[in-house]
C-alpha cells in the first residue's frame, strides 16, 4: 500500500465512507500533500465507492482544494477591494521579488507557492494574506521581507 493509499484509508476510517465524508477526506489529503493528484482522487473514489469524476468535480469546485502540485507553504494574498485599496500590489511585488515567482507559480525548490484569493475577512487590517492556515495582517513590503525570510529557514 502506498503512503497516500494508507492516508486515505485512515481518513476514511475516521470520517466514514459516505458521500458526506468526501470533503473532510479531500481536506485531509490536502493538509498532508498540499494538493490532490489524479492518483489520490482515484484512490479516494475507490475507497468511498463513488465515481472518480464526482471526486474531481467536487474537488475542483473549491478554491482551497488544489489539483495542481503546490509548494510546502502556500501563500494566498487577498485581492478583494479593501486589501487592493490598501496596497496589495506592493505586497505582491515584494513577495515576487523575494521568491522570483509569479502568481500561480511554485518555487523550484518546492517550498513556496504564490496565489491570490478572495476576501479573507480581515478588511480592517488590510492588506492581509494566509500562509497555509496562518494569518498575516497590516502588511507592508518591509513586513513581507521579514515574514518570508522567516519561512525560508523553515
Amino acid at each position, binding site marked *: 500500500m502506498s503512503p497516500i493509499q494508507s492516508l486515505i484509508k485512515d481518513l476514511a476510517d475516521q470520517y466514514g465512507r459516505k458521500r458526506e465524508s468526501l470533503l473532510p477526506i479531500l*481536506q485531509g489529503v490536502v493538509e498532508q500533500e498540499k494538493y490532490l493528484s489524479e492518483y489520490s482522487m482515484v484512490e479516494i473514489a475507490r475507497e468511498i465507492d463513488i465515481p472518480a469524476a464526482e471526486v474531481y468535480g467536487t474537488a475542483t469546485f473549491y478554491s482551497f482544494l488544489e489539483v495542481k502540485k503546490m509548494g510546502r507553504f502556500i501563500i494566498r494574498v487577498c485581492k*478583494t*477591494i479593501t486589501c487592493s485599496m490598501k496596497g496589495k500590489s506592493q505586497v505582491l511585488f515584494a513577495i515576487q521579488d523575494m521568491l522570483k515567482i509569479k502568481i500561480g507559480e511554485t518555487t523550484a525548490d518546492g517550498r513556496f507557492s504564490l496565489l491570490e484569493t478572495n476576501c479573507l475577512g480581515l478588511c480592517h487590517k488590510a492588506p492581509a494574506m*494566509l500562509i497555509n492556515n496562518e494569518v498575516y495582517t497590516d502588511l507592508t513590503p518591509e513586513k513581507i521581507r521579514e515574514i518570508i525570510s522567516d519561512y525560508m529557514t523553515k
Partner: protein
Amino acid sequence: MATTYQLKRADFVFKNENDWEQVLSSIIRRSPQELINELISSELKGRGGAGFPTGLKWKITSELKADKKYVICNADEGEPGTFKDREILQRVPYKVLTAMAACGYVIGSNEGYIYLRGEYKFLEPELLKVIDEFEYFCKEINLDFKVKIFMGSGAYICGEETALFESMEGKRGEPRNKPPYPSTFGYMGKPTVINNVETLAHAFTIFKYGAKKFYDLGVQYSRGTKLFSVSGDTPKPGIYELELGMSLQDFVYEFGDGDTKAVQVGGASGFLVPRKKFADTAIGYQGKLTGISLPTGGSMMLFNSSRSMFNVLDNYLEFFREESCGQCTPCRVGCQQLLIGIKAVKRGERPATYLDKLLRLTETMQYTAKCGLGQSVANSFSSIVENFREEMIY
C-alpha cells in the same frame, strides 16, 4: 451637516459574560413555545443580510415531525468587507453555542454543526476546546446536544444556505431550487434551522435579558443592534455594535475621513451610496417610512475621493465572476460579460450607451438567476454605474 448626532452605540454581543451555564440552564427550564414567543416578540431578523425573522424560522421547524433535525450555524462569512463573525467566534463562542443548544431544544434536535469557512481554519483548535467544555456541561444538565465543526474549503457561494447543505453533503456547493426551504428540507433532506453567527449571538442576549430590552433598541421594522464591519478609507476600521435605523450621514460623520465620496453598504452584493444621498439613506431592513432603507450583513466600506469607482466595480465583478458557481447561465455568463463590457467601455471600444445595455443585462440577471449571488450583482452594478457614470467612461 448633521447637527444632532444620533449614532447609538451598544455593547451586547462582545460583552464578556461568564454566565452562559446559568443562561442555558434557565433556557431549558422554559417551554419551547415560550422561547419561540420571546424570539418572535423581539423581532430579531437574520443578521446574515437576508433578514428573515429568526423566531419564525425556529417555529416552522419546531412544528414539523421528523426522525432527525439539524441546527446549523453559518460561519461561511465571505462577503467582501465583513469580518464580524470571525470576531464573535474568537471572543464569545459560548454565546453562539448556547443559542444553538437552545435552538436544538426548541425544535427537537440533538445535532448542531458550525460550517466554518476554510479561510478561518486557524479558529478551529480554540473552538474545539470550547465545544468540548460546552458538551460536557450539556451532559451535566441532561441536555442531549452535540456540536461538530464542518470546514469549508474556500467558496463564497457556500454561504448561501442550500449551497452550504450541498457542500456538507460532499458535493459541489451549488444552490438548490427554493422552495423547499431549509426549514422543511435542509441538510440531508431533514428540517434544518440555519442561522448566521451573529443572529445566534443576539438570540443569547434576548434569552438572557428578555425580548423587551432588544426590542426597545433600533427603529420600527429594524429592531435591536447590529455589528458593523467598518473598513476602507476610515481612520478607525474595526467592528462596532450600533443600533439599527441610523442615518448614513451620521455614520459617515463618525467614521469618515472627512473626504468620503461613497459608502458601499452590504458588501459587493449590496449598494453603493454616493455622498449626495447620505442624508436620505437609513441603515436597516426594508419597510421604514421615509427615505431609502438599506439592509446589510454589516459590511460598510468607505471610499474617499482618491478612489476610482471604475476600479471598485472592476474588483467586485472579478470577485463575482470567480465566485459564481456556474450552475445557472444568467449568473455564469452574465458576470463574465459585465466585466468584459465595462472594460470595453473604459478603453473606448464601445460607446457610452453600451452601459445601458449592461444595466439591462443586470436586470435580467436579477429576474432569472437561481440564487442571491446572481440576483444581487445588479445592486452594486446599477448603483455604481448610475451614480458614477462618467468615471466608467473616462
